């Protein structure tokens, strides 16, 4: 058990600056309007830094820098770009604890998560796309004896990216890595709830990237995000967040005739077939953990397994064991490596979760565990903590249909395979799902029948680079984490070359 020192205290791995400017053209640049906003740590509920409050003027300055850098970066060979990405990965690995403390303080998640998941995944993501771009070939075709077509992948140019607050550094990296690998320059707008940890990272890697290749403007969505997304000076806008903003992003993209990829969340079902309980062995233990993974990252994951569907014959025993297993999830100081459940990212998230717990009860769902805000006392007393919560009910209830984005799972039973699949698919969303079965055929068929872009079979919450990730239905458009993502950041140049010395004979 290690308890990391809070930032700014003796022995702390990171000390935040009192004020962070924007990162534009490879340097810190003050907001044009000179305004700042407070960044509040969910760990304590108290502000810990001021951050530039970006406006359209800052976005335009960032776009200027990105446009200046775009031609040279776009013409850099994939070999050189891959080397840059690999160096960034090395810096992340060398600063693991520093970045983990920064991430925990900005987001509230327990430090075992950035140490073991977020940050190793981030460095690996850069390495994956470094390899993918090196291995990406163009193609050619001999169309006739005198004509050859050559197809090249070219960058789009300057792209805009707007990211959420649930995995601040990792969500930035999921966007940055493929876009950079593909030769684009970027203006990134982090989430206003978590604007600082990405700036701590850019401070470490800023001199590896040519100036202007990555630019970061913080601010509120309506003041900074909207001017970025609707700017006619970007060739693509990428977004991860919720549906209404996703629709606006696509609206702006259509007005500017640019492509857009959007990842919009889900209400992911976790299906436990009866055979899971055939033996009380390591696999059963794993399935039990799979149930409790609704509490991972405080439930603030677009693919949170927030609906548990348990096949009737094992319903009581599996759920009973799941409740006991959930009680073991230690909630406490997020800087303590023993803590499993930390703070929600903001006050309004906490309030929203509590209001969902309330509507769950009103609709008649049975509260089996939790349901209350938590006061951890001492310095943590004003932090945003809520108990892992388990509801039992039916799939038409709002707590089964809407993304609560907290450590809340809604549990129901299913009869047979068809019933399980029908309930799993009875949702507006289709981002993630889990299928647990010892029977390979059942597991495979269920994986193919569930309408979701990611189905975890006999595991959950794994996000290795190389595994394509994205939504079906109202969960969005596009795929990340796989070489497919390169295509979202490239356009095809076809050179159609004639080797004939004779005229057409037409004019």
């Amino acid at each position, binding site marked *: 058990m290690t308890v990391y020192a809070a930032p700014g205290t003796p022995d702390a791995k990171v000390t935040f600056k009192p004020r962070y400017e924007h990162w534009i053209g490879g340097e810190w640049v003050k907001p044009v309007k000179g305004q700042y*906003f407070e960044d*509040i740590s969910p760990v304590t509920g108290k502000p810990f830094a001021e951050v530039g*409050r970006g406006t359209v003027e800052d976005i335009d300055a960032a776009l200027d820098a990105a446009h200046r850098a775009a031609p040279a970066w776009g013409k850099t060979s994939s070999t050189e770009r891959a080397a840059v990405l690999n160096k960034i990965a090395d810096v992340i690995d060398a600063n693991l604890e520093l970045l983990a403390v920064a991430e925990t303080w900005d987001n509230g998640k327990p430090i075992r998560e950035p140490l073991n998941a977020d940050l190793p995944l981030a460095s690996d993501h850069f390495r994956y796309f470094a390899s993918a771009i090196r291995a990406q070939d163009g193609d050619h075709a001999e169309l006739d004896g005198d004509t050859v077509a050559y197809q090249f992948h070219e960058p789009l140019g300057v792209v805009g990216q707007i990211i*959420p*607050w*649930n995995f601040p550094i990792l969500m930035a990296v999921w966007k940055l890595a493929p876009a950079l690998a593909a030769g684009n320059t970027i203006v990134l707008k982090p*989430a*206003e*709830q978590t604007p600082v940890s990405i700036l701590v990272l850019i401070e470490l890697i800023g001199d590896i990237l040519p100036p202007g290749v990555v630019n970061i403007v913080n601010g*509120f*969505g*309506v*003041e900074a*995000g*909207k001017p970025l997304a609707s700017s006619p000076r970007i060739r693509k806008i990428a977004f*991860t*967040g*919720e*549906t*209404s*903003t*996703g*629709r*606006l992003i696509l*609206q702006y993209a259509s007005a500017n005739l640019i492509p857009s990829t959007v*990842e*919009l*969340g*889900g209400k992911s079902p976790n299906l436990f077939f009866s055979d899971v309980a055939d033996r009380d062995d390591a696999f059963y233990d794993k399935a039990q953990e799979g149930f409790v993974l609704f509490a991972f990252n405080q439930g*603030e*994951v*677009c693919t949170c397994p927030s609906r548990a569907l348990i096949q009737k014959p094992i319903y009581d025993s599996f759920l009973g064991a799941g409740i006991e297993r959930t009680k073991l999830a230690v909630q406490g100081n997020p800087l303590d490596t023993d803590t499993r459940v930390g703070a929600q*990212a*903001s*006050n*309004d*998230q906490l*309030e*929203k979760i509590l*209001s*969902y717990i*309330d*509507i769950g009860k*009103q*609709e008649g769902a049975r509260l089996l565990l939790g349901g209350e805000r938590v006061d951890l006392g001492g310095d943590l007393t004003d932090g945003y903590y809520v108990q892992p919560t388990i509801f039992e009910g039916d799939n*038409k209830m*709002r707590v089964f*249909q*809407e*993304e*609560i*984005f907290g450590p809340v799972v809604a549990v129901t039973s299913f009869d047979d395979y068809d019933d399980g699949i029908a309930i799993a698919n009875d949702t*507006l*969303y289709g981002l993630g799902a889990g299928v647990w079965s010892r029977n390979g055929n059942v597991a495979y068929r269920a994986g193919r029948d569930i309408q979701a872009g990611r189905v975890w079979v006999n595991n959950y919450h794994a996000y290795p680079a190389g595994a394509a990730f994205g939504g079906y239905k*109202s*969960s969005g458009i596009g795929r990340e984490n796989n070489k497919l993502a390169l295509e979202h950041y490239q356009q095809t140049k076809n050179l159609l070359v004639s080797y004939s010395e004779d005229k057409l004979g037409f004019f």
Partner: protein
Amino acid sequence: MIEASVVIPGETLPRVAATAETVDLLRTLWSANGPLMFHQSGGCCDGSSPMCYPDGDFITSDNDIRLGVLDISDGGEPQPIDFWMSREQFEYWSHTFLTVDVVKGRGSGFSLEAPEGVRFMIRSRLMETATPFE
């Protein structure tokens, strides 16, 4: 607290209300931004909460449904604010009455209140609709 008007054909009960704090905030936002609208968002991160936009910024379609109109004027010129939701989402919400409240927060998406350090959210209660949604 104000209640929205009834706009869904065949219905007789309002579906949306706004607390006094919400009305005050909306009046402030209206002075700064002009006419406003709400669209209830779904999905991850800042979803499951209403987004407040300048009226017309968010293009609604036949796949959205207007649940009611909140008039925040104080007896003077009407200041109507439409409250919208996607139809597919409404199928799961139609049995609940929605009260738009305000809490301290960091805000999100492109919703107008974020710079004020607050966030709109929905408090729900069960309701009996006069006629069921078809």
